[in-house]
């Protein structure tokens, strides 16, 4: 039986400090040692069953504020949201009372098949209508504002007609959702498509950025000497991404900021050190910006 006692009906606000993406290997250390971390974010899909994962999360929730980050709702699916999946996420949110709930500006389900990756959308008026309908439905089901994250992308569609930042702003305008600004994704996508990362940040100034994400990425060499940057969350944050983060904090102010690390997961101490660094930038963004040049 659950011993979780809700602390209040209004979701508590996650502070404008750095938190850590919590994955299974660190559950027990967090429960046993209660490390000094401002907040944790978890992938909603990891807790939609029951048993030990959910029990751990409820234990952790007694000591920490949590953010629920979805990776499987598929806001960009032309088929609409999976009603069962949506219901399970809503039930989890009701149980955990997260400070923030977020999803991606991507799709991963087609005709009921889950593709196992966050795929980019054709940036068209049709796709914009689909995303807005799905975000509306998500927000209605949870009775709260959600955040939508800009994706890391490796490809563009021939028939796209809208710039990604404009597309995201249109979703915000039409649905009232907030933006989860993933700094690493902006950096990776800008490099992969020849965009200007700063211009993307400037465009987002018209809307409310409510959270930042930071993660490590890798560089995959291709056959002809070119390369793609891969957002694999498997290493420390790149110096150029730290610098871009400093610029983002200058533009948008301090916001809850997450360190994400999903492959080759390091010891908790390494994640805490990365979070401490992010917290320092949130307080003094200028210090980091001189460190590296940003396109």
């Amino acid at each position, binding site marked *: 039986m659950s011993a979780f006692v809700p602390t209040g009906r209004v979701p508590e606000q996650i502070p404008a400090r750095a938190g850590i993406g919590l994955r299974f290997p660190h559950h027990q250390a967090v429960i046993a040692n209660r490390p000094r971390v401002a907040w944790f974010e978890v992938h909603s899909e990891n807790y939609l*069953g029951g048993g030990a994962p959910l029990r751990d999360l409820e234990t952790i929730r007694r000591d920490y504020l949590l953010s629920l980050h979805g990776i499987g709702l598929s806001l960009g699916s032309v088929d609409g949201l999976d009603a069962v999946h949506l219901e399970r996420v809503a039930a989890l949110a009701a149980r955990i009372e997260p400070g923030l709930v977020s999803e991606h500006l991507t799709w991963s389900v087609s005709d009921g098949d889950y*593709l*196992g990756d966050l795929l980019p959308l054709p940036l068209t008026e049709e796709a914009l209508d689909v995303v807005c309908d799905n975000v509306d439905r998500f927000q209605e089901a949870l009775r709260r504002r959600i955040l939508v994250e800009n994706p890391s992308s490796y*490809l563009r*569609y*021939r028939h796209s007609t809208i710039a990604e930042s404009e597309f995201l702003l249109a979703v915000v305008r039409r649905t009232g959702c907030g933006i989860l600004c993933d700094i690493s994704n902006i950096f990776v996508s800008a490099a992969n498509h020849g965009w200007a990362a700063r211009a993307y940040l400037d465009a987002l100034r018209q809307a409310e950025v409510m959270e930042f994400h930071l993660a490590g990425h890798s560089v995959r060499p291709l056959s002809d000497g070119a390369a793609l940057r891969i957002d694999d969350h498997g290493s420390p944050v790149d110096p150029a991404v730290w610098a871009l983060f400093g610029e983002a904090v200058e533009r948008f102010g301090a916001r809850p900021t997450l360190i994400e690390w999903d492959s080759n997961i390091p010891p908790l101490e390494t994640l805490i050190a990365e979070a401490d660094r992010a917290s320092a930038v949130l307080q003094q963004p200028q210090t980091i910006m001189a460190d590296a040049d940003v396109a």
Partner: protein
Amino acid sequence: MPTLREVQRAVARGIFSADGDEALAHIAEDAIAAAERFAIHRNNAAVTLIEALRLVYPVVDKVVGGEFFEGAARAFIARHPPRTACLNDYGAEFAGFLATFPPAAALAYLPDVARLEWAVHGSLNAPDDAALEPAGLAMLSESARGRVRFVPHPAVRLLTVRCPADAIWRAVRDGDDAALAAIALNVAPISLLVERRREGIAMRRLTPGEAHVTALLFSGAALSDVASQHDGATLVSLIAEHLAYGRFAGFTNASSE
């Protein structure tokens, strides 16, 4: 301009099959070929789904080795793409698939090991429903007790295997090669009860009689019907054991059927 549905169907086909041409036709090309760009997503998807299966089937993975597992997983994913984004629920058909996967034909015990792992996985991730308190039964009259139909606890699984999958599971988990080598594969079918206890997963072999009674009880047969088919003393002690380990979540005893 292609519709969003056309694009998503083409991309989905390209992710799960070797034929991505239809998807590539929609992807812009520059200094980097569309195929190289699309390959990033194909690879991400494959890694995610293969690793999800590896988490559910760690013993099968160890038995066959990482490379063989990856090949089997790729073939499985192409035939049974996930129907849910909750990957904890993905892979139910893997045991059945392995039974028909030609490269695994020599490993007759493998599908049973996979079935056992699916049961273990299901038990570990089942909801924490409260166990039925025996006191609730004690208050019933004898006739009311006969009408009792138990509801099994969601973390309990009952399965029959044709090889000692439990012994293989334990030996592989513990890395005990000597124990693994000593397992005789040709045995009579074994009924296993898998459950979640405080200290972890527990497995108990049931005699054919115990397995029959337990299957009846778990399927919601009325207690009087089960009693008419089985020896009373065995039934009482088995129910006492099931209650002691919290294998029932509740019961119904409607007076008319």
